[in-house]
């Protein structure tokens, strides 16, 4: 008995003009498998939907083709209609007779429209139902790193009722002390206290990840702390391992009075110098062009030094990047309070003259050389990924950008996702720092994970992409090729190892189905037969 297909044409309220729908309906009605053809003017609106649900039920349709606008716009609506009519939502195929037919060709395009419908029918006849299944997921989250970003993510997650483990390789939490949040204009003083008081957040210091397996919703992580290894399950992993800095050509002999931004904030906080520095110099943006942190750090430190010691402040700069939030205001404040900005093309020379740091630079605007002796010079720093980022990358099998930071800006994954579902990045470990955006990223990660895990279960297509254990020869190609690391080798009942695709981790790209040398992987909706059937339909047009 042939599969019963219902075809619904929608003229989109008259927006599809150059198609003779009567003729099209007549011709489509004759096609094999078609038991009902319908014309509507507003299928996606309420009444249209009602009519469609009842026709599907009354005529006992087993497959549905909708000829109208682009599936990218309305496919989910028609899938909902199928479900309402008691039909598996995957048994739908759409013919884009609006954007890809009526609107791009002049004159009558009825023939092409019928062609596109015939392609959709050929495909729909082969479609298989795909169930949705709920999978339990762990509501625990692992946060690697303990800087400002890491601890904030942990706090926000705990507010969503998710337990978090903050894992820090060092002996102590880094936010506040190591990473001077004040420099970046954020207050981190209370964050550690909040974290330690929050019973939803477990802190593991001098702890390291040894091995990692499994997929989103159930990462298996072996953590080593104080010589003991424990195995834990996590639904998601957040990497917030921050960054480290290296002073650029400090002028070795200048010695102690050339400091990093962090060191300068220590001096500011507990003025470890015997006497207060009368003149302070800053070097800004000569070698590391793209990071925004140096500008913000320089402005905050300059203002703080002016306020505390009233010292003379000179900033040798190539560029002052004020495009992130609130930085323009800081820059104006600095100038108003008397900070001198010296614009020069090349980095100034740093030397020593009677115990003070000598800075020689060329002031481009004044058109003359400037020699400055200052008590403290805050040198320029290169922003680099934290130590251990590579080992983490190989453990998680995620990629880094050429400079070693995580998640180069692939527009589809931007801003906090990685190519592996359930693994997120936030903060300094992503390179190009912008404090304003970092705060947005922190809530972005928390919201993503909350959405993913807070229900404790995730609904996903069940075995929409599946490797047939009979045909799989365990050649490992799909496992190595899958861009999302969603496939692993598992032993099935016949004591044979075969590829198993995780429904949660799979991002439905079909690369595995294309590379499988044994044609063992079926990707419902885009199986070879379903693609070749559309080519077959084109042949007869």
């Amino acid at each position, binding site marked *: 008995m042939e599969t019963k297909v219902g075809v619904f044409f929608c003229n989109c309220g008259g927006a599809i003009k150059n198609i003779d729908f009567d003729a099209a309906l007549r011709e489509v009605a004759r096609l094999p498998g078609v038991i009902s053809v319908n014309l509507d003017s507003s299928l996606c609106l309420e009444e249209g939907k009602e009519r469609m649900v009842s026709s599907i039920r009354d005529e006992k349709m087993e497959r549905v083709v909708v000829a109208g606008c682009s599936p990218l716009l309305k496919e989910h609506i028609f899938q909902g209609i199928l479900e309402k009519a008691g039909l598996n939502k995957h048994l739908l195929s759409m013919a884009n007779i609006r954007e890809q037919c009526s609107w791009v060709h002049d004159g009558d395009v009825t023939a092409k429209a019928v062609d596109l419908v015939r392609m959709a029918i050929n495909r729909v006849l082969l479609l298989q139902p795909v169930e949705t299944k709920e999978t339990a997921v762990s509501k625990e989250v692992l946060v690697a790193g303990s800087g400002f970003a890491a601890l904030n993510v942990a706090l926000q997650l705990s507010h969503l009722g998710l337990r978090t483990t903050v894992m820090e390789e060092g002996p102590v939490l880094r936010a506040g002390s190591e990473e001077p949040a004040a420099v970046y204009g954020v207050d981190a003083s209370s964050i550690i206290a909040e974290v330690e008081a929050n019973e939803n957040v477990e802190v593991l210091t001098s702890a390291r990840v040894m091995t990692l397996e499994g997929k989103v919703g159930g990462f298996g992580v072996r953590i080593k702390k104080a010589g003991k290894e424990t195995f834990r399950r996590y639904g998601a992993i957040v990497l917030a391992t921050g960054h480290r800095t290296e002073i650029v050509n400090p002028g070795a002999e200048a010695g102690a009075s050339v400091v990093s931004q962090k060191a300068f904030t220590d001096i500011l906080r507990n003025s470890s110098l015997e006497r207060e520095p009368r003149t302070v110099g800053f070097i800004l943006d000569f070698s590391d062009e793209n990071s925004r942190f140096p500008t913000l750090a320089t402005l905050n430190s300059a203002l703080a030094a002016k306020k505390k010691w009233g010292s003379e402040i000179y900033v040798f700069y190539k560029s002052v990047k004020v495009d992130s939030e609130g930085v323009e205001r800081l820059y104006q404040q600095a100038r108003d309070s008397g900070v001198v900005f010296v614009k020069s093309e090349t980095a100034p020379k740093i030397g020593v003259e009677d115990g003070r740091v000598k800075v020689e630079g060329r002031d481009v605007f004044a058109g003359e050389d400037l020699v400055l002796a200052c008590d403290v010079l805050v040198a320029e720093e290169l922003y680099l990924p934290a130590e251990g980022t590579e080992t983490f990358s190989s453990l998680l099998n995620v990629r880094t950008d050429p400079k070693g930071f995580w998640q180069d800006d692939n527009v589809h994954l931007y801003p906090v996702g990685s190519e592996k579902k359930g693994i997120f990045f936030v903060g300094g470990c992503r390179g190009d720092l912008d404090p304003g955006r970092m705060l947005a990223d922190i809530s972005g990660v928390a919201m993503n994970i909350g959405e993913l895990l807070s229900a404790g279960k995730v609904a996903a297509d069940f075995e929409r992409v599946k490797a047939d254990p009979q*045909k799989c*020869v365990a*050649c490992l*190609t799909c496992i*190595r*090729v899958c861009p999302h690391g969603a496939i692993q080798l598992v032993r099935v009942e016949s004591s044979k190892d075969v590829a198993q695709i995780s429904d949660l981790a799979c991002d439905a790209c079909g690369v595995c189905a294309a590379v*499988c*040398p*044994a*044609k063992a992987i079926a990707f419902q909706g885009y199986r070879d037969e379903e693609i070749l059937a559309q080519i077959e339909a084109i042949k007869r047009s």
Partner: protein
Amino acid sequence: MIIAERKPIEEIRLMMAPYKKILVAGCGTCVTVCWVGGEKEVGILASELRLARGAEGRELVTLEATVDRQCEKEMLAELRDKISDVEAVVSLACGAGVQTMAELFEDKPVFPAVNTTFIGMPEGEGLWVEMCGACGDCFLDRTGGICPVVRCAKGLLNGPCGGTRRGGKCEIDAEKDCAWVLIYRRLERQGRLDLMREYRAPKNYRAVKRPGRVQAAKA
């Protein structure tokens, strides 16, 4: 694992020239794993042949089939009906598969579509390298698990030769590591350099009397 390489389409096209109806037979084991002879490649080769024949304005009917292992007569027997229905068979199996098929269906011409190259392992995605030459007299125990018979370009038992390039690369290829330098480094690491210092007498190249036969001692 046996590694093979697909023959150029030109060669296969000439083999199939006299025939109008052929079977393209794949093998589901080694040649599937090294991407040349599995069900996917059967489809592609069949399509390539039909396209080529179409370009000449002549017709070609192709049947396609892939069995688990072409070097097993019981598995090849599954193809009996299809083979009786065609004039010739082009097999994407390794040499063993092609010959088992040729032996089982003696009245049908059987043609190889791949060149069987070596026993090897994957070095990268889609890249395989030779590891074993099936010499029948394995002495990996004395070379730290690196076989000079195939991985040294001259198969030397007392290497390296004088032609080793700077950095320990092979005489014939600046990219390839000299097997004997690899052996030296591994044995040195394991503190077993005495193995390399031992003189290796000339090899028994007839350890396997070609063509080889192996009789299992017991079931």
